[in-house]
């Protein structure tokens, strides 16, 4: 079962990685004034043609012929619809894909957000060649992380080095 919104995020990011994205943006916003939670994931991967974009929200559609049907997008779309929200996917061949979903923040069926700190940490260090921009805002609280800014101070040291992982863990614990 997909149990929290972080599962959805990881699932959509997996599509971006499969599309050979070099940069992935993850934006999570909790807006208490409008009672909305929104998630936007944008990548610069291979993108899809129009027919594929239309099919991708259909649970019986997959481009991986003969393989297990990918359910990431229809599952997220389903959750957004149940929670009085909206779902959108935009994609252009060779340019990338943007998936956005919003939810009614206090909807009884809204799954918990889940552990964002762990989720971001794991995504960053298990895909050390990919650049990630992550932004989270909830009311007054704001957090932003951009792996591009970490490359220069790190030099040749990769993001998945044990000491960098330890740093990222504490950094996320302290600031997110």
């Amino acid at each position, binding site marked *: *079962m*997909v149990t929290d919104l*972080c*599962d959805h995020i*990881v*699932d959509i990011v*997996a599509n971006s*990685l*499969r599309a050979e994205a070099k940069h992935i943006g993850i934006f999570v916003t909790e807006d208490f004034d409008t009672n909305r939670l929104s998630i936007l994931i944008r990548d610069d991967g291979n993108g899809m043609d129009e027919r594929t974009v239309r099919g991708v929200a259909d649970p019986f559609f997959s481009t*991986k012929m003969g*393989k*297990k049907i*990918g*359910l*990431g997008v229809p*599952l997220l779309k389903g959750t957004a619809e149940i929670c009085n929200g909206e779902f959108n996917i935009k994609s252009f061949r060779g340019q990338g894909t943007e998936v956005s979903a919003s939810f009614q923040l206090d909807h009884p069926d809204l799954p918990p957000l889940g552990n964002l700190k*762990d*989720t971001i*940490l*794991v995504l960053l*260090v*298990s*895909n*050390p060649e990919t650049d990630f921009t992550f932004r989270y805002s909830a009311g007054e609280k704001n957090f932003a992380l951009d792996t591009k*800014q*970490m490359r220069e*101070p*790190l*030099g*040749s*040291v990769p993001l*998945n*080095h*044990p*000491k*960098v*992982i*330890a*740093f990222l*863990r*504490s*950094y996320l614990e*302290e*600031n997110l």
Partner: protein
Amino acid sequence: MNIDDLRKIREKAEKDIQLRQNQARIRIVVGMGTSGIAAGAREVLKTFVDEISKQNLADVIVTQTGEKGLASQEPLIEIFEEGKPTVIYGNVDAEKTRRIIAEHIVNGNPVSEYVIETR
């Protein structure tokens, strides 16, 4: 703690990197397709990330991949090691992951009871 603290880490880490010459001894791949995630692959990946950092396993890297076609036995992990057969573990959870790290990754003895395939 801020991003500039990474400069200090760099000095220490560059020594490790010279030792391993950018060659990871072991590469671990965790299946993170929809069914893997649903079966708990996130927790498995997180456990690997935590242990690599805690035990300073500088020559071990963990990455993620999509569906593996063995959905009924997820979470699935593959262990690639130079000169050795690839070992695939199935139905892995956080506890099994810690045992695989201790016995297989650190000591070189695959945990045969969790192995579902070797290649």
